[in-house]
């Protein structure tokens, strides 16, 4: 995170990816499994933020909500309605799970926009685990609820018989590509946005273009605020869509 670009000996040096380096908070040792790193720090801040909004914000249990409680209720209603509308009424049992994903992603994304922060959701390690969680959950739920009938998801019964094997291959490929696209979409969006901001920040070292650079950073930052929410929304709604496939596999 340390380096912007420095105009060393007239040349611009960009290190837009340095902000993504994982490093121990205490000392310079290797990053082991349990090492407390900047990942730990920012995930802890995410947890604190979620608790602040959803637990402390609603501690008044007011019938007429205050600001914090309104936002908490808004998030609750937003995701609850999404689960109900997209995945169906019987998916409401998965609501806490989907809410967890949404709250984590949305808070991690927004906290990543704090200057000098570390964006946990810009790492494939994080998004791949999230996407695999969804993938495994959906697959397990699909087989548990429907048994072998879940395979009907790949057998498009409305298509002509001759086409069905071809379609089945395509469906299976698309099914297994889901976690890949699901994870890369989130991490890629955030990483690209943050890297672009760093690159623009690097140009600020040249006096002539620095005003333009500041304007560009501001514009990118605005875009990133939008992207932060939209990517959390997209991740969540896709989870709901996949869950719907698991609960109602017929096309």
């Amino acid at each position: 995170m340390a380096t912007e670009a420095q105009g060393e000996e007239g040349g611009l040096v960009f290190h837009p990816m340095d902000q993504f380096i994982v490093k121990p908070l205490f000392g310079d040792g290797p990053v082991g499994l349990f090492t407390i790193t900047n990942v730990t720090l920012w995930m802890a801040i995410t947890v604190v933020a979620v608790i602040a909004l959803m637990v402390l914000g609603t501690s008044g249990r007011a019938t007429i909500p205050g600001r914090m409680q309104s936002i908490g209720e808004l998030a609750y209603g937003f995701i609850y309605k999404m689960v109900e509308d997209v995945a169906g009424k019987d998916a409401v049992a998965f609501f806490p799970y989907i809410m967890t994903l949404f709250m984590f992603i949305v808070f991690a994304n927004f906290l990543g926009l704090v200057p000098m922060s570390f964006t946990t959701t810009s790492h494939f390690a994080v998004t791949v685990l999230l996407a695999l969680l969804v993938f495994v959950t959906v697959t397990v739920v699909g087989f548990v609820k429907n048994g072998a009938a879940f395979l009907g998801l790949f057998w498009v019964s409305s298509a002509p018989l001759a086409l069905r094997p071809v379609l089945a291959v395509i469906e299976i490929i698309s099914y297994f590509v889901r976690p890949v696209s699901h994870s890369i979409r989130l991490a890629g969006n955030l990483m690209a946005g943050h890297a672009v901001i760093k690159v623009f920040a690097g140009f600020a070292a040249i006096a002539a273009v620095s005003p333009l650079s500041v304007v560009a950073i501001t514009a990118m930052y605005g875009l990133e605020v939008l992207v932060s929410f939209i990517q959390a929304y997209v991740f969540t709604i896709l989870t709901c869509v996949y869950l719907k496939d698991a609960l109602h596999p017929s096309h």
Partner: protein
Amino acid sequence: MATETTGATASTCVVDGSAVGMPQLCFDWWPNQIFWLTVTLVVIFFVLSRIALPRIAAVLAERKGTITNDLAAAEDLKAKAVEAEEAYNKALADARAQAQEIIAEAKAEIQADLDDATAKADAEIAAKLAESEKKIAEIRESAMDSVKEVAKDTAKELVAAMGGKADGRTVTSAVNARMKG
């Protein structure tokens, strides 16, 4: 889990404080991130599912109940207001009718008084008129008599002046005949 410790920089992904390639693809860091992510998700999940979500659900349900109750109460109050308005209108109509009655009564009373007074006044006027007529008749009568007297005397004197001898009875009948004609 695996990293060889190479002096100051703890990973092959970082050389001289800068990232080599994409830090996202530095698999040395994956176990750490996955571990802490798991911890984070478990904590968030338990906090949400045990505390936050049931609480918000309860608050929302309570609010829904309150709103339903309030709406019912409002409906009740509205019915009461309509009732009150009806009662008010009825009272107003009653009062108006009563007022009309009182006015009519008062008018009738006044009319009766007026009629009475008018009749009395008329009677008085009639009586006074009759009396006056009587007096006028009397005066006229006496005036007539006087005229007769004067006419008789004058006639006698005239006759006497002309050298005749006035016969009282003849003069009187002549004057009477003249006065009638």
